């Protein structure tokens, strides 16, 4: 029996993707107040590197920032059908822990790069930059999630890594759009090369993983297709969308996704440093590689952020934004292409493999599962890029506004890292019976997916400068 149209629309409309777009647009819209000479987000909390914790941030700014986030996230909880009171309590604890990790990561002994040690009055430091806070948030979440799973379960309603990262990315669209407007030629080239890179990655990765899963590991079609999409393309979203496209039982992509998250965390911890070590003079190749190799949106965007910090420790270095634009472009195009690939797979399955009487393509299911936040990113990126491109005098004000919005983008990223840690059950790797599933993942991901991703990124981004220009 077909799903009634109105409930079906409600189910896709009242989703984290739509909410992420709304929240992201709200923050960006408020940041635009600088164009009218008003600063509606000027009170947001900024964390400084510190040796004295009382100087790390302004408590009043923190109170204002938290109140604002609590208000909009609680309204978001209502939108998603979650009880706001219970959500608010959990979000408060979640934010408190994640923010504590973020502040701890700004300790000068962890964060200060060599040329800032003297100013901080210290003789040594690890030089991890403030992005150490992201890693501490991830580790903090992992510790709670794996040592105290009941606590992690308690956070479930509030710890929403996909919502946080997608909101952050919609905001990032404005930040990167304003930056791209300064050099439209370089931005256009990155966009085209990003698109070209993901077309190559899709066509090569998917076919190889699917072949391996089917021929070598003996998986059925129902398992092999979501596995191929999950391992090779974009993790959870791709596995679930592919599951819908080939009409797999819902349990199959869910099981695949449970492994995707674990491996994404491993990639987040390993690949940024590996990229910096392998490609010391090719930051844009490293940035593209993060988008092509790290699965799931949260882990990929976050890895890009850490990688940019490894190459350019100064948070205000413009090169970071060019790297971020590269990772983000690749990842967003991958998300867009999930829909295209799902339609192709659904056509092949419906017409050749799993023919059903009167069964057309499951386009509505594909649409329901399509990562719609990409429209929000396209809107903010496109609007800021066009505004700056058409009126260059506007760029300084646009950047001033997006600098304020960027504070919230960073907070959403911190929440993402912490929530990913909470949701990652690393014991699943050695759970009895999962060996074959984990093995195909390990062999594919570390055997060829990340290396083909590196090669593709090198082909399209080698020699592209991250520095220079404005």
């Amino acid at each position: 029996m077909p799903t009634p149209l109105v409930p079906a629309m409600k189910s896709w409309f009242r989703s984290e993707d739509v909410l992420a777009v709304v929240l992201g647009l709200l923050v960006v819209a408020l940041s635009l107040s600088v164009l009218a000479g008003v600063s509606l987000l000027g009170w947001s909390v900024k964390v400084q590197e510190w040796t004295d914790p009382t100087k790390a941030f302004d408590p009043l700014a923190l109170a204002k920032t938290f109140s604002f986030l609590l208000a909009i996230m609680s309204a978001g909880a209502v939108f998603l059908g979650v009880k706001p009171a219970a959500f608010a309590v959990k979000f408060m604890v979640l934010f408190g822990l994640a923010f504590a990790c973020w502040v701890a990561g700004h300790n000068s002994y962890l964060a200060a790069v060599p040329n800032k040690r003297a100013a901080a009055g210290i003789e040594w430091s690890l030089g991890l930059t403030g992005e150490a806070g992201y890693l501490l948030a991830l580790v903090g979440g992992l510790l709670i999630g794996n040592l105290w799973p009941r606590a992690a379960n308690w956070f479930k309603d509030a710890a929403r890594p996909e919502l946080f990262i997608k909101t952050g990315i919609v905001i990032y669209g404005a930040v990167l759009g304003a930056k791209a407007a300064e050099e439209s030629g370089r931005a256009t080239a990155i966009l085209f090369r990003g698109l070209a890179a993901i077309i190559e990655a899709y066509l090569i990765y998917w076919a190889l993983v699917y072949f391996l899963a089917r021929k070598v590991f003996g998986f059925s079609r129902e398992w092999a297709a979501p596995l191929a999409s999950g391992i090779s393309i974009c993790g959870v979203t791709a596995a679930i969308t592919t599951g819908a496209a080939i009409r797999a039982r819902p349990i199959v992509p869910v099981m695949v996704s449970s492994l995707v998250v674990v491996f994404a965390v491993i990639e987040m911890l390993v690949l940024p440093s590996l990229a910096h070590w392998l490609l010391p003079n090719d930051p844009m190749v490293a940035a593209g590689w993060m988008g092509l190799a790290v699965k799931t949106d949260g882990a990929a965007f976050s890895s890009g952020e850490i990688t940019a910090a490894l190459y350019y420790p100064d948070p205000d270095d413009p090169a970071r934004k060019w790297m971020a634009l590269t990772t983000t472009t690749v990842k967003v195009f991958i998300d867009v292409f999930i829909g295209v690939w799902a339609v192709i797979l659904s056509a092949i399955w419906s017409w050749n493999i799993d023919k059903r009487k009167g069964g057309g393509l499951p386009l509505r299911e594909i649409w329901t599962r399509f990562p719609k936040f990409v429209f929000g990113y396209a809107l903010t990126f496109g609007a800021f890029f066009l505004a700056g491109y058409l009126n260059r005098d506007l760029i300084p004000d646009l950047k001033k506004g997006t600098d304020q919005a960027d504070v919230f983008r960073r907070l959403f990223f911190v929440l993402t890292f912490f929530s990913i840690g909470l949701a990652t059950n690393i014991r699943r790797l050695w759970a009895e019976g999962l060996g074959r599933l984990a093995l195909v993942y390990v062999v594919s991901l570390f055997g060829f997916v990340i290396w083909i991703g590196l090669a593709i990124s090198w082909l399209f981004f080698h020699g592209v400068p991250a520095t220079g220009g404005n």
Partner: protein
Amino acid sequence: MASFEEETARELSQVEAEPLLPAEQWLIGGSLALGAALLGVLLWLSRTYFAIQN
């Protein structure tokens, strides 16, 4: 009630090998062939129309 891990293990143990159908072979082969063919075209387009100077 079975745990998620137990349920997954049970599902995986029930997976049976299926022969690779011609449509799947076409999908795999076509995808790889198209990827190889497009690689040259996309690289040429990138370097010709979307070059970035240092």
